[in-house]
């Protein structure tokens, strides 16, 4: 999993281009009106946190003039802009690594900016061939007066218009045109052959033929395989990350795009037809909404894709829907063009004209809104007309499991945790219900936002009931809200950045200052905190308390009366990414004694088995017939010996711990590897256990580990007839059923049964234990046979009956991936009980624990 990239919109300009029969290709509107200022370009560079969270660097460096200030963290925004503008010129000239960086971030645009500086940036970018030929792009951009009306982004209007109105083969496809460092990403929409903007049921029988024809064309296009999903029509649902229920689709708290759309379409059908197919030859034949980006080279694909998928395509579809319904785009375009013509005639400056256009045209306003929001990584909420509004955003990373390092700085303030990494091995679909919803805004603010919309009153009720200390599951019980509903709302709030799913906050959990906390925001946070929690320890004090040795949060709460407000503080800190939960992860540690005991038991079993087998050969005929039946059900084609054992251990596949995916491998490998573990004791008699007992490459050397203890024990060396490897496996399996049910009286494994050991045997076990090394069981769910035996032996050694009963339940969390803090929640058990049990296990030294986030 790659570290999440910071949200960094590289949006530069939005253009609307139309092509009509009367006017040809026209660049109707672009926003912002002028080429972006140096300030907005600087804002695009994520340099502020790139490096360490420090602002003294400038001062540190101010002695040297050639340490380019543009890569440094500006003390203030103004300085930053200034230094970047002047710095980039220098950077362009020096062929250092560091100017490379400037180029990557801002360089792509310098030529287009038309700065009067010696920028060979573009040429230098890629191959260092500093030719100045490529830099003519934006020279005219600076010329004021009429020139500003004739060029956009430094290109002549007519040239751009032609380039951005591609042929029909781009219908509903991604249009991508790169010109040096910038890329034009568009979603061209074309009128249909029949003059309509939408295909669909509403066209009655007469149009059926055309429709079918068009469908065929569409299909043909799709079958070319290019972006299949772009072929979907308006009323097909968007493929979202979340599956939204009706009414919770994008369009946060407002009228909803697809929902409203699909509903309205059928009613509006006749409308549509009369409007857009009226004159049989509509004037506008296509429109293309084009977003101009300047992504850094390494993030090119990602940035372009996320912008296209989340904004460009959706916006274009929304416009197409409106166009189909009201001839919206063309009407608005004509209006905008007329206003522009008037402005040119009046000699108005562009900024004034743009102001007027945006004020009077909702289409222009929506473009401006999208630009302003998306380029600031916010959610764009647009009203296309009285009945239709919708929202766009580029989803952002919620959390990261990685900490920033000197080499790889990371966006600060991001929630640092592994809590919301879904384990691929066991997709737990319901895992969100164990999580609590942490609202990222105050409840009242959030409710107010929603109040405009009558039908979301239910949401307001839900939101008021949300608390970060209770899981969704508990919430749904407490307020008798259907759990599906509450999960939908959670998904909705999370998607629209109003909330975050976290493990429920609890006073007995441990929280630390997040290594990824954004200390730059501290100043504002301190005062915000002070107004919110007056007469309580200040924010720095709280952070100080939480940065000592890890302790449960309750430790910091002075009295039970303070509990609630301290939990509020915790939620507040969590929301700002100031703290993160320190979670405990564990593995089962198998001490040498257990290994020795198991080895001894298995040794005994083997000899018993040997005897039993001699017995069995006598009844061979009767058994075989039954055995084959059991075998065919249980385990395919295995050898005769195993057949017998599988009959004997008829229920072993049903027990969860027994499942050993390697059993067949084991069989196959036995013959080849059986000798190697045996040899080891002789090779280095001083420390035989180093090899035999090591857990290294457990999977491939299953037979080695399982056989070695038996083979190396003194008894087996004296054994007259060395049992074949298959016998060993058989023996192991034969025993498994009894031992895999810990509640059942363990016949051989229980400590009381250690009695039968003769004194000599017991000492043998003890001396043997020194030959084993303690090891870890990395994944109890996938434990192999010998590991399972160890686990059983450990379980048998517990005194506490409750613990013995719960051991198999707890076991699955001891894999280093599940936090022990979540066990109670997931199992729906009392926290105290689980805490006590785990405490007992830890005290017994059975666990290796480590804490991280």
């Amino acid at each position: 999993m790659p570290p999440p990239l910071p949200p960094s919109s590289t949006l530069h300009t939005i253009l609307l281009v139309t092509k009509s029969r009367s006017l040809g290709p026209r660049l109707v509107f672009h926003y912002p009106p002028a080429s972006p200022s140096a300030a907005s370009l600087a804002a695009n560079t994520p340099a502020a946190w790139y490096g360490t969270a420090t602002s003294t660097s400038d001062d540190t460096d101010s002695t040297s003039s050639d340490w380019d200030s543009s890569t440094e963290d500006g003390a203030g925004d103004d300085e930053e802009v200034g230094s970047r503008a002047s710095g980039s010129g220098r950077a362009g000239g020096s062929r250092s690594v560091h100017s490379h960086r400037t180029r990557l971030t801002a360089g792509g645009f310098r030529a287009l900016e038309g700065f009067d500086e010696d920028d060979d940036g573009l040429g230098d970018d890629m191959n260092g061939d500093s030719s100045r030929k490529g830099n003519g792009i934006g020279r005219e951009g600076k010329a004021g007066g009429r020139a500003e009306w004739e060029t956009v982004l430094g290109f002549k209007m007519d040239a751009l218009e032609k380039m951005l109105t591609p042929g029909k083969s781009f219908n509903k496809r991604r249009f991508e045109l790169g010109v040096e460092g910038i890329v034009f990403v568009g979603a061209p929409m074309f009128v249909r052959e029949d003059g309509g903007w939408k295909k669909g049921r509403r066209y009655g029988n007469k149009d059926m033929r055309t429709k079918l024809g068009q469908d065929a064309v569409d299909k043909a296009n799709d079958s070319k395989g290019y972006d299949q999903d772009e072929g979907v029509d308006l009323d097909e649902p968007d493929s979202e990350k979340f599956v939204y229920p009706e009414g919770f689709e994008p369009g946060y708290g407002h009228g909803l795009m697809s929902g409203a759309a699909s509903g309205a379409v059928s009613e509006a059908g006749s409308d549509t037809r009369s409007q857009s197919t009226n004159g049989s030859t509509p004037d506008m034949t296509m429109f293309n909404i084009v977003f101009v980006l300047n992504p850094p080279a390494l993030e090119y694909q990602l940035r372009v894709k996320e912008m296209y998928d989340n904004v460009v395509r959706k916006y274009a579809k929304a416009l197409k829907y409106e166009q189909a319904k009201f001839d919206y785009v063309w009407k608005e375009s004509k209006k905008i063009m007329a206003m522009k013509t008037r402005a040119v005639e009046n000699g108005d400056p562009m900024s004034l004209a743009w102001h007027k256009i945006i004020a009077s045209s909702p289409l222009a306003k929506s473009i401006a809104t999208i630009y302003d929001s998306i380029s600031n990584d916010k959610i764009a909420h647009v009203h296309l007309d009285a009945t239709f509004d919708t929202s766009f955003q580029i989803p952002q990373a919620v959390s990261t499991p990685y900490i920033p390092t000197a080499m790889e700085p990371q966006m600060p303030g991001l929630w640092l945790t592994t809590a919301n990494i879904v384990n691929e091995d066991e997709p737990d679909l319901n895992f969100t219900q164990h999580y609590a919803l942490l609202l990222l805004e105050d409840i009242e603010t959030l409710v107010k936002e929603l109040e405009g919309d009558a039908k979301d009153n239910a949401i307001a009720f839900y939101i008021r009931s949300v608390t970060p200390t209770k899981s969704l599951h508990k919430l749904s019980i407490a307020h008798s809200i259907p759990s599906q509903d509450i999960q939908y709302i959670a998904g909705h709030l999370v998607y629209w950045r109003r909330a975050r799913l976290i493990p429920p906050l609890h006073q007995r959990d441990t929280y630390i200052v997040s290594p990824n906390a954004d200390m730059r925001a501290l100043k504002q946070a301190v005062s915000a905190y002070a107004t919110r929690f007056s007469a309580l320890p200040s924010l720095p004090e709280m952070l100080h308390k939480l940065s000592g040795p890890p302790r449960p949060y309750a430790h910091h709460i002075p009295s039970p009366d303070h509990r609630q407000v301290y939990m509020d503080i915790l939620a507040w800190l969590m929301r700002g990414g100031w703290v993160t939960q320190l979670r405990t992860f564990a593995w089962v540690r198998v001490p040498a004694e257990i290994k020795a005991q198991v080895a001894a038991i298995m040794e005994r079993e083997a000899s018993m088995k040997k005897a039993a087998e001699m017995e069995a050969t006598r009844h061979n005929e009767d058994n075989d017939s039954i055995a084959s039946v059991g075998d065919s059900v249980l385990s395919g084609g295995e050898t005769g010996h195993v057949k017998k054992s599988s009959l004997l251990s008829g229920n072993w596949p049903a027990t969860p711990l027994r499942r050993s995916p390697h059993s067949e491998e084991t069989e196959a490998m036995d013959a080849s590897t059986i000798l190697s573990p045996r040899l080891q004791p002789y090779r280095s008699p001083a420390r035989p256990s180093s090899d035999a007992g090591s857990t290294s490459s457990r999977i491939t050397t299953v037979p080695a580990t399982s056989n070695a203890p038996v083979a190396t024990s003194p008894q087996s060396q004296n054994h007259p007839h060395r049992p074949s490897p298959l016998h060993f496996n058989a023996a192991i399996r034969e025993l498994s059923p009894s031992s895999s049910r810990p509640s059942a009286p363990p016949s051989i494994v229980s400590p009381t049964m250690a009695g039968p050991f003769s004194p000599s045997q017991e000492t043998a076990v003890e001396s043997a234990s020194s030959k084993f090394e303690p090891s870890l069981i990395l994944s109890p769910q996938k434990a192999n046979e010998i590991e399972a035996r160890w686990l059983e032996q450990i379980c048998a050694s517990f005194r506490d009956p409750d613990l013995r009963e719960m051991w198999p339940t707890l076991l699955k969390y001891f894999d280093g991936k599940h936090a022990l803090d979540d066990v109670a929640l997931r199992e729906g058990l009392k926290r105290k009980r689980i805490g006590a049990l785990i405490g007992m296990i830890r005290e017994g030294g059975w666990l290796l624990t480590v804490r991280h986030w």
Partner: protein
Amino acid sequence: MPTRMIKSIFFTRFHPEKGSRVLHQVPEGSITPSASPSALKQPLFHFPSVSDYIIPRQEFCDRLVTTCTNRYRVVGYPVCIKGEGKYYRNEFIFNFALVLDEDAADWGSYASVVRKLGRLLRALEEQGGFLSREEDLRMFEDDEDDGLSWKELGQTESQTDDDDEREDRHFNTWRSEPSGSGGKVYALCEMILEDLNNYCECMIPIVDDSNTINLKLFPTHLPPAPIFAWHVPLLTIDLSSFSSTTISSDLTLTRILPYIDGTRSVSHLSQLADTDLSLTRKAVQHLVYYGCVILLDIFHFNAIYAPTAEIYDFITDQSLQEECARYVRIPHISLAHGARDERKTLAARNVLAEDGGNEAAAVDADRYRVPKEHLVKLYTSLKQGLTLRNWVLENFELLTCVDVRRFITFGVIKGFLYRVHKYAIATSSSGVAGFEEEKRREVLMKPLEGEGRAYGSDASRELPLARYLDGLHSFDEICTELRMNERDVLERVKGFGEVQIIHR
């Protein structure tokens, strides 16, 4: 870099009357249908629908123009050469373009190749008509027959002042080369495709000149993070195998290289090597960019380290643990048997104890081996709020054969340990009026003045400690910049009023 990234290379030339024509394509039929028997059955994409982007309007010429169609990315560099009297309508427009997969991650390196080629071909054409000379008019011929008229036109216009010999050569070229294949430009397409796809670089001599086309795909690296004075560089490759003069002509780099040992901070390096601090930082940044160096923190026993989520990988990866055991082991010196060194004795005793006391003649190699279990235990016992000093005291028994610095460094390098940095925040200062702060500054100024002077002439260095107390500056940074040890800084901070120390 994945091989065979380039799906096709083609050369397009704009004909004033016939429009854009693909004159050469490798493989045949990849762009426009071809009659050649070896040609692809179907072109990769529909050329006419993107021809406007291959041969765009003049405004878009002489810059990189890419377009995406049918899941392919066409990277081109259209060139427009104006030659009065030289060309028909005084223009010669061509594009030498590559076709890649649309989602090719690092197509930037191909873009630079295309750009270079475009410029090179432009120069070659301007110098000697490299492209126009071997142009075969039949390439433009379809079913129409006015190609010849253009030929005549073109000839008369372009050759008016040329001598006959040149015209003959042109004529011969046209005759001798079959259309569509053969010829230098076609050969160029072929060689570039093969070499770049197979070797990521190519060197193609152009016969009639001394010119060579040298191309190489350079992977794009992330811009290096800024380097600060308190970073500790650690070399990841052995630069001593190069003779130090050949590594770089950067004098600073040459001077600091011998001092980089993974314990010295950048600031320390610049002192030892007597180099300018900012130049040193820059030099280290170069090393970071090329992946020769990784950055660590300043190691000391007051530092706090704690495991990150990646500790999971260490615990589950046996080979990593073995690597660690080799790395952290204190090198064995044979005087161990003499047991003069107390530490060694301890180590020996420890090992003996492990062996149950009965294996006195343990093999030397085993004696200094660090059990993996110990490593795991040690790493997991590091935690927030526990300084290394205290940790060492707590785990003294297990650490007998372990080089603590290497032990910590290993974890930091592999990313499963992180340094918990210490920050100071002056809580009162935010609410205090400005003048009071000024006063405090003055007070603090005095004791610091001396150090500031010695440090550098920069006035900003003499700023009081106050500027560090906003939670943005780790103690490593403060200590490095003020050249004080942590205890002194802490003491000064304490005299500063209400200050909270935060570890994160």
